[in-house]
């Protein structure tokens, strides 16, 4: 099973009621897999006429209390931004998988991490956040799906999974957990027809004087809760490190190889890998920062997450960026070289 299919199966096992999608490379395995498996399960699959329609079908299904998701790749995710803003405004749980490819524009179909800003900083209009995950292997891609649906329901928020072309296409053995999921609050806000109760309304429009301002404060209070409780981050050989490489997703996988190699050659390198990109592990990164260390941020872009790392470190340590955009995939050798270069101590020179 490739990453795309494994993720899809995991979503189905997490209780997905409806999948809506539109073909785009490199995530076509998802739509194909869903078309077959959702029919087998007697659940809903629709190949929509556009990504705009797909995200609005998610909007409709979610408003009735169903678990709904869509997947796409970068240009298609751009088209969904209107819908994602409305999902955030109307507080509708939903899961959106972006198997990122090179951009801007039509770009190419090679793996990329160029959509970090779009996912983490908003993307659509208005003051809002989505929970954003950046899995770095097929097993993690699989493990995140039930969690993503649970968090979406718990906080009534859209959850974005930022994968990339490599993760979508690569094959690894996986286990889909059968562990029981936590109990979630009842969805008493959903639209089911107003039989025996007062009317429910789902909306993102608040015209009364000051109502949108208050709605925004309420959203922000929810975001602060999420920041408090839902940050996920991996630290690897950080304690004694002279250089800490920060990377997420598939780039972090490559970085791990480079860190191992550096250690074998006597360079004290470590890795910090944000698993949630929003909320961002600012505190975890900040705690490791001091003037004796250097931070290297590696991304498959021209440098996006590096801005959040710099904000977290707030000048307490030097932060260097290295990356490759537009479908360029860093090699272990390249990251190792960069690590070595940054840790050469000038005073050791003769």
């Amino acid at each position: 099973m490739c990453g795309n299919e494994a993720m899809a199966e995991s979503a189905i096992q997490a209780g997905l009621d409806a999948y809506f999608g539109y073909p785009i490379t490199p995530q076509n395995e998802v739509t194909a897999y869903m078309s077959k498996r959702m029919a087998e399960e007697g659940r809903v699959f629709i190949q929509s006429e556009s990504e705009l329609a797909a995200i609005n079908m998610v909007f409709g299904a979610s408003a009735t209390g169903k678990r709904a998701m869509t997947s796409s790749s970068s240009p298609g995710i751009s088209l969904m931004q209107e819908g994602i803003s409305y999902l955030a405004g109307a507080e509708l749980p939903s899961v959106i998988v972006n198997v990122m490819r090179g951009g801007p524009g039509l770009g190419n179909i090679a793996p990329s991490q160029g959509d970090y800003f779009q996912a983490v900083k908003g993307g659509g209009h208005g003051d809002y956040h989505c929970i954003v995950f950046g899995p770095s292997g097929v097993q993690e891609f699989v493990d995140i799906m039930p969690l993503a649906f649970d968090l979406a329901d718990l906080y009534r928020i859209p959850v974005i999974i930022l994968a990339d072309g490599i993760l979508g296409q690569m094959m690894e053995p996986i286990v889909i957990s059968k562990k029981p999921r936590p109990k979630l609050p009842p969805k008493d806000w959903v639209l089911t027809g107003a039989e025996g109760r007062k009317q429910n309304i789902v909306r993102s429009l608040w015209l009364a004087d000051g109502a949108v301002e208050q709605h925004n404060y309420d959203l922000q209070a929810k975001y602060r809760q999420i920041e408090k409780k839902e940050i996920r981050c991996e630290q690897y050989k950080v304690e004694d490190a002279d250089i800490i490489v920060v990377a997420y997703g598939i780039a972090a996988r490559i970085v791990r190889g480079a860190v191992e190699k550096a250690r074998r050659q006597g360079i004290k390198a470590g890795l910090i890998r944000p698993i949630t990109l929003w909320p961002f592990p600012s505190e975890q990164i900040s705690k490791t920062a001091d003037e004796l260390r250097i931070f290297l941020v590696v991304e498959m872009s021209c440098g996006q997450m590096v801005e959040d790392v710099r904000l977290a470190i707030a000048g307490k340590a030097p932060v260097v960026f290295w990356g490759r955009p537009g479908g360029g995939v860093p090699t272990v050798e390249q990251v190792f070289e960069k690590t070595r270069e940054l840790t050469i101590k000038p005073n050791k020179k003769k």
Partner: protein
Amino acid sequence: MMQKVFTRPRTLKDCPTHYCPGCGHGIAHRLIAEVIDELGIRGKTIGIAPVGCAVLAYDYFDVDMIEVAHGRAPAVATGMKRTNPEKIIFSYQGDGDLAAIGTAEIIHAAHRAEQFTVVFINNAVFGMTGGQMAPTTMLGQITATTPEGRRADGQGYPLQVSELLAILPGAIYIERCALASPSHIRKAKAALKHAFELQVKGAKGLSFVELLSPCPTYWRLSPADAMLWIQNEMTKVFPLGRLKG
């Protein structure tokens, strides 16, 4: 003894609306509410409000309601109806919403034979944003963005959405009515009832009712003259009657 012979439908809330004097939305709302009451489906109906003058429809209909992005109602309705086939889903959309920005969504909902009901309010103008040209604006009609009157050359012809949809096998019932006189309004009610009944029966496709509706404010006409303008002018381009089913 006093007997109550006329009252507000249960499905319509007892509150003033924000609509202009002579606007057709109030009539259309009432007809839909009467149909929902008569079919006894209030408890399983979900309505979809558009972006446009009727964006606040959720404040007037006493059923579960959702407010959605401009033009996307048919996609939202698709997501709802497919996951809840036993519910009655209707979208209520104006001509900017359905005939301009939402053309893809309505055509593909019909194309997929989605089993919900669409009420399409055609008043030949964008109301909420200040009376700009709509795709359904009549030739020669003066609007905020056609100060010299709409010209076919450069601004196109009035878009006949019902005729477009009628060629699709997935649209099983399409009728155009007018809210332009008591007899027209009675016919509109019958059409709406038929559309909802088809959905209740589980008919396999889209039911769609277009209502030519007065906008005295942006037509710069009195409410009475607006009714006459529908009868004498609009129906020339948008002929009334059942197009399908």
